């Protein structure tokens, strides 16, 4: 019981320091330009991976299921400049409908 609380405490402080680290020590204004230029691209790399990993994996396995159809439809909607809310709802409706029908 106590060990869980210690874990939560360490995680909370550690997670905050990690957030702070990137936002202070790695301030783009302080980095040499070639490095700052790549650091600017980090969110792109992480978001692209986040989208695909949360769409086609379950734990340590690649799993193709209804999510892929929902997110593909959402991607087309986003590419056609549909509003954010429509994109998200489209993904939910398509994914939910496929699950309900199969």
């Amino acid at each position: 019981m106590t060990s869980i609380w210690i874990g939560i405490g360490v995680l909370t402080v550690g997670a905050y320091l990690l957030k702070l680290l990137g936002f202070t020590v790695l301030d783009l204004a302080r980095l040499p330009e070639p490095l700052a230029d790549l650091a600017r691209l980090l969110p792109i790399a992480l978001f692209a991976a986040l989208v695909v990993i949360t769409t086609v994996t379950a734990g340590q396995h690649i799993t193709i299921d209804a999510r892929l159809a929902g997110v593909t439809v959402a991607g087309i909607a986003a590419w056609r400049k549909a509003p954010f809310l429509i994109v998200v709802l489209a993904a939910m409706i398509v994914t939910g409908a496929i699950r309900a029908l199969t």
Partner: protein
Amino acid sequence: MPDTSYRRDGFALSAAVGVVGVTFGVFASTSGLTLLQAMALSGLTFTGASQFAFVTVIAAHGTAIAATLGALTLAVRNSLYGPALTDHLSVGGWRRLATAQFIIDETTAMTLAHPEHPRRSFWWTAIWLYSLWNIGTLLGHVGASQLGDPAGLGLDAAFPAAFLAMLIPLLRSRRIILVAVTAVVVAVASVPFVPAGIPILLASLGVLAGRGMSR
């Protein structure tokens, strides 16, 4: 008319995340965490992927040390968002300390997706998301026995769809697209070999594909 789409978008994203918060609350409860522990994770730690990772290890009767180390590794992701945000949210002193706590996937994406109002987008999303994530956790933990699995509603597809919607407008050059594609390849290829969550960290190597290319 000033563009206030960040309000609608930030709220919609926060609402979806709030439902995921319910899932987290249910999961924490069924894994044996007390309400106070679940609320400490959502209210103080405040970084979803790490929270789920922590509880997953506890649920599998792993040690608190293993749970903490695994969750901390995933939290490295937030430190990789900081540099890009310093371009948009230049603040000093205590404001910088307060801003840092709210640097997570969603606030970063919403800020980059609305570069005309970066600060407002960041804080609007941070405040709604923090509130709804915590309310969701509370409801989930308290009502754990009555609530079903929200995945059936297709909610698990909402999260990648939301990030895809924010990512697509940022894919403005061949260089950026190359970085995104490389990141995806690295992440997917590593899935069978590393614990869940780590492939997204490894994807950061994708930026190296943009080395030496003109912007």
